[in-house]
C-alpha cells in the first residue's frame, strides 16, 4: 500500500493522513498541512484494494477510533478524526 509523501520544512513529526480523494474536509486538511509546510504522508483509502482498506480499518479500530475521514495519526500515537485544526496544531506543537 503506497503512501504518498508530501515534503515540508517541518518534519519533526511523523504525520499520516487517511483520506478520501473525493472528500471536502480531506482536501482542506491536505491544503492546511501543505500551506503550513508540514511534511506528511497520505493514503486515499477509496483508491486502494479492499484488503488494504480492511488493514487500515483494523489499524484505526485498534487505536480506539472509528473509521471516518480524514483521520490523522501523529507520531504513531495521537489519532485525530476530522479536520480539527486546533487538535492538529497541538499535537504538532505549533
Amino acid at each position: 500500500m503506497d503512501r504518498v509523501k508530501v515534503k515540508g520544512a517541518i518534519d519533526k513529526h511523523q504525520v499520516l493522513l487517511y483520506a478520501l480523494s473525493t472528500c471536502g474536509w480531506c482536501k482542506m486538511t491536505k491544503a492546511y498541512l501543505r500551506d503550513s509546510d508540514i511534511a506528511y504522508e497520505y493514503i486515499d483509502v477509496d483508491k486502494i484494494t479492499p484488503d488494504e482498506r480492511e488493514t487500515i480499518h483494523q489499524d484505526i479500530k485498534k487505536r480506539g477510533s472509528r473509521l471516518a475521514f480524514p483521520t490523522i495519526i501523529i507520531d504513531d500515537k495521537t489519532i485525530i478524526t476530522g479536520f480539527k485544526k486546533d487538535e492538529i496544531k497541538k499535537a504538532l506543537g505549533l
Partner: protein
Amino acid sequence: MTSLENIKRRAENNAKKHGYFLNPDPDFLQNLIVGLKENEDRYGFASCPCRLGSGNFEWDRDIICPCDYRDPDVEEFGQCFCALYVSKDVVEGKRPMQPIPERRPQEKVDRAIGKAPEKTVKSEAVSETSDTNRKLFYCKVCGYVTFREEPPHKCPICQAKQEMFGEIVLGTDIQVR
C-alpha cells in the same frame, strides 16, 4: 456521464426544495461537486464524497446524496456531514461550519468496508431499524408524508411551513394528531 453543472443544479434544486442552502465557500462547494461526480462516474450513483463507499448499491443506499443522515445533521449541527447542505444560520455566518460526528451506524460502515462489491447481494427490504428515531409526518396542506426525526423546515412539494406538519401515530387504530 453527468456533468458537474448537472450535479450542482441537482443539489441546488434539492436545497431549495427542502429549505436548505449549499456550502457558502465556493472552493469547498466545488470540491464536493467534483467528489460527487467522481462517485457517480465510478459507482454509477452519487454516494457521499466524505464517506467510503463500497460501490455496491445495497450497501451504500443510505449514503447516496442526499443521504439518510442529512436532515438530522442539519437539524442538530446546521450542516450535513460533508457540509454540502447547510442551514440559513451557517450561510449568515451565525454558526460555524465544522467537522461533525459520523451519524451513520457502525454496522453499515463495517459492512461496506473490506470486501469487494458482490453482484449477488440480495435486495433487502428498506426496513428502518432502531438506529433512528424516525417518525411519520404529513403535510396538512398537500398530504405529503415523510419519515424522519423532525418535520421538515418546509414541505418539498407545496412549500408549506414546518408548522403545517402533523405527526402520524400508528397503533392498532391509526390515529392522526
